[in-house]
């Protein structure tokens, strides 16, 4: 079944399938409720909290997000099943014409198709659970109302970004998400490190945003429209070489924006520092939603990328490099949240690598499952930190598995999921990525696919290892907790543990559910799996363009071997982690660890490099602060001396000329008379000479 690109255009311009009914209203409510919540809490939160306590300030924002979740479900279900009025191309809702400026028309509206629905599901579900969790986590903070206001603002921004139907609105949501992230990372603004981290996040995002903005402008120059679906259709229809800005360049510019927001190398530096924010923020923004915006962007622009294959190779390369780069750093970090941050970077790298090789459905699938288990891990780590009274260094934890059981068991689930052990969710999505990469390389000749598969396998092993290191140091073995706080370790309140359990369930089941009937289940079950069925219309045109008909699935052939490889590496990493760092009562072997690290020069170097984040922050400091600082100083000198000098010089010349000319005004009549006489003489003389010549 081949969907030509013109069908995409036709689908946009065609009449909606059936009457949209009340869906435009529902869809509009989804972002509208959080912004109202933000306004209400920002205006009245402080007073409510002062007069009637914390609960009064929290009830509106949390209630609104729950309501938004319910409404979102009502929209998600028909969208995923391609029911009317969504159909296969999705429902376009236009609210009004935002910018009517002649050739430049921008409509304010939303576009909901299956991809949007998947993102909506992740964002609203995890957003709701984080809001509930925050009630417990921020229970001792004096500015809780501000936190919830910002959280609602963030929900609004992210929903606008995901729902937007035009590039300009996406960009608006993009920037707002950055702003909310800045506000939330720097929530404890009186802590200098938090303020600096917030600044860093915003600035590094901005670097990527420049690329994105240029990409949007390039899209407009190429197609003359800002509507996403229309512009994509026009871009791929144009004959090659007729566009003012070549497609690969547009694709790379858009990817630059995705790199900033999703923290790919070299714009990854802000994400680990962003852990300065409260843990619910880390869970929501930096694990489940904001960093997924980049993945969503590239997935949404998949026709563009599919027709610019050079860009796709770069995307895959950057993604897989980030994956292994971040995983290598996670080996040695001692702050529990930093390990998780680098883990997020690594998994995002997986998603981009998947997008880069053309495995779009796999990338989005991993986005979903990752959102759930990474959110779980972060919230769990928040619970641990809460239990040991704000201690974040893993070397001062240990033996907690008996003291905080719910947290421990849910985090164990999350760890197994992320390591990729079947039948938990992570296995399905990760294996899908690796499998598709290998198959595209083997069957279609896509060389980068081999790289992605090989490095990806290595990263899977590393992931299992460092996650088990985290678990071992935090929960197992003997307790290294500070003796003063040891007796006071307690399980977290229900507002915190219930979301953990609620997140553990999809971490276990989601993978199986979404692929039921499709790969990697054996053929006799039949069908193509729920997630593939949902997302197919969004990506099928690009996949056809890239690879033609998809190959069949052979569980007992190539695909079986691939599954075996994935599971094998995950198990190896896991077992290595068990042995070295402990499991339940078994203590770890720190002496063995130290011996391995100190074994020879190479391992010592890798240990130091990993611990120092490969000195990348120092490199940035050298390049931009020192060298850039000198350039800036020179430019300042230039501006002061040359530019200002020129401007002031004009003034000086004028003033001096005026001063000089002023001296003609002597106030003496005779001087004036002399002037008149001279003028007269000149006139008469010239008349005489010129006019009076005999002809």
């Amino acid at each position, binding site marked *: 079944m081949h969907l030509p690109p013109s069908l995409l255009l036709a689908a946009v311009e065609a009449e909606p399938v059936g009457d949209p009914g009340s869906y435009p209203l529902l869809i509009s409510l989804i972002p509208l409720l959080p912004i109202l919540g933000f306004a209400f809490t920002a205006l009245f939160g402080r007073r409510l909290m002062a007069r009637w306590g914390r609960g009064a300030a929290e009830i509106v924002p949390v209630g609104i997000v729950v309501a938004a979740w319910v409404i979102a479900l009502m929209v998600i279900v028909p969208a995923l099943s391609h029911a009317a009025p969504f159909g296969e191309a999705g429902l376009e809702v236009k609210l009004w014409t935002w910018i009517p400026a002649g050739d430049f028309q921008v409509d304010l509206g939303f576009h909901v198709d299956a991809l949007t629905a998947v993102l909506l599901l992740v964002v609203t579900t995890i957003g709701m659970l984080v809001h509930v969790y925050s009630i417990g986590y921020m229970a001792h903070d004096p500015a809780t109302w501000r936190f919830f206001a910002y959280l609602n603002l963030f929900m609004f921004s992210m929903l606008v970004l995901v729902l937007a139907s035009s590039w300009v609105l996406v960009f608006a949501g993009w920037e707002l998400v950055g702003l909310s992230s800045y506000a939330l990372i720097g929530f404890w603004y009186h802590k200098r490190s938090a303020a600096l981290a917030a600044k860093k996040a915003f600035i590094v995002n901005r670097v990527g945003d420049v690329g994105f903005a240029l990409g949007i402008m390039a899209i407009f120059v190429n197609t003359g429209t800002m509507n996403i679906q229309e512009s994509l259709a026009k871009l791929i229809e144009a004959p090659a070489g007729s566009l003012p800005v070549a497609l690969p360049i547009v694709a790379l510019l858009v990817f630059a924006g995705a790199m900033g927001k999703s923290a790919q190398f070299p714009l990854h530096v802000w994400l680990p520092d962003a852990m300065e924010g409260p843990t619910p923020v880390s869970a929501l923004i930096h694990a489940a939603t904001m960093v997924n915006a980049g993945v969503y962007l590239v997935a949404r622009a998949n026709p563009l990328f599919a027709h610019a294959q050079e860009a796709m190779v770069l995307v895959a390369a950057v993604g897989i490099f980030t994956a292994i780069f971040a995983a290598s750093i996670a080996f040695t970090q001692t702050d529990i949240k930093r390990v998780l941050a680098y883990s997020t970077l690594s998994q995002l790298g997986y998603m981009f690598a998947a997008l880069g090789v053309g495995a779009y459905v796999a990338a989005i699938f991993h986005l979903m499952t990752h959102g759930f288990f990474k959110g779980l891990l972060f919230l769990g780590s928040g619970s641990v930190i809460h239990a040991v009274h704000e201690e974040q260094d893993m070397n001062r934890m240990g033996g907690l598995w008996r003291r905080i059981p719910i947290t421990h068991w849910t985090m164990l689930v999350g760890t197994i999921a992320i390591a990729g052990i079947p039948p938990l969710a992570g296995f399905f999505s990760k294996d899908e990525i690796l499998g598709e990469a290998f198959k595209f390389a083997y069957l279609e000749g896509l060389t980068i696919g081999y790289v992605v598969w090989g490095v990806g396998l290595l990263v899977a092993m590393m992931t299992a290892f460092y996650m088990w290191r985290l678990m071992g140091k935090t929960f197992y073995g003997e307790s290294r907790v500070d003796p003063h706080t040891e007796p006071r370790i307690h399980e977290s309140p229900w507002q915190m543990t219930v979301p953990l359990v609620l997140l553990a369930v999809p971490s276990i089941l989601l993978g199986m559910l979404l692929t039921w009937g499709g790969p990697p289940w054996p053929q006799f079950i039949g069908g193509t799996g729920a997630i593939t069925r949902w997302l197919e219309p969004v990506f099928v045109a690009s996949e056809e363009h890239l690879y033609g008909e998809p190959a069949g699935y052979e569980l007992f052939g190539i695909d079986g071997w691939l599954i075996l490889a994935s599971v094998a590496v995950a198990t190896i990493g896991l077992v290595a982690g068990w042995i070295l760092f402990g499991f339940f009562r078994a203590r770890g072997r720190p002496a063995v660890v130290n011996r391995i690290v100190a074994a020879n020069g190479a391992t010592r170097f890798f240990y130091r490099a990993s611990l120092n984040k490969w000195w990348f922050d120092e490199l940035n400091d050298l390049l931009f602060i020192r060298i850039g600082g000198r350039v800036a100083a020179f430019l300042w000198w230039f501006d002061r001396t040359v530019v200002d000098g020129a401007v002031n010089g004009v003034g000086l010349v004028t003033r001096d000329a005026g001063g000089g000319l*002023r001296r003609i*005004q*002597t*106030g*003496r*009549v*005779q001087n004036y*008379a*002399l002037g008149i*006489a001279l003028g007269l003489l000149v006139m008469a003389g010239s008349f005489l000479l010129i006019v009076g010549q005999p002809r």
Partner: protein
Amino acid sequence: MLGALNGLSQSLDAYLILAGILFAIGSFGFLARRNAISMLMSIELMLNAVNLSIIAFGAFSTSLNVDASVIALIVMAAAAAEATVGLAIVIAIYRNRKTPLVDEYDAMRQ
């Protein structure tokens, strides 16, 4: 050589050039002297030069003959009036400034 000067008084050019030289002398005095009264005297010289040229034109032209004399008389009357008022002004300024030298009248200067 002096024979070339024969008929000088019969030539209009001579009178006119003479008037011109007198005018130039008067203008030099006007532009260069410091005393206000010297300036006025120079103005009188210039007026006289003009008078001379008018009379010269009248002397060498039948139609202008009488009219030239009339004009010269009127110019003379105007010159007298102007000299009167000018000198009165100079006296008045002298009373105020205590000096007749025009380059010391600098109240309107920066």
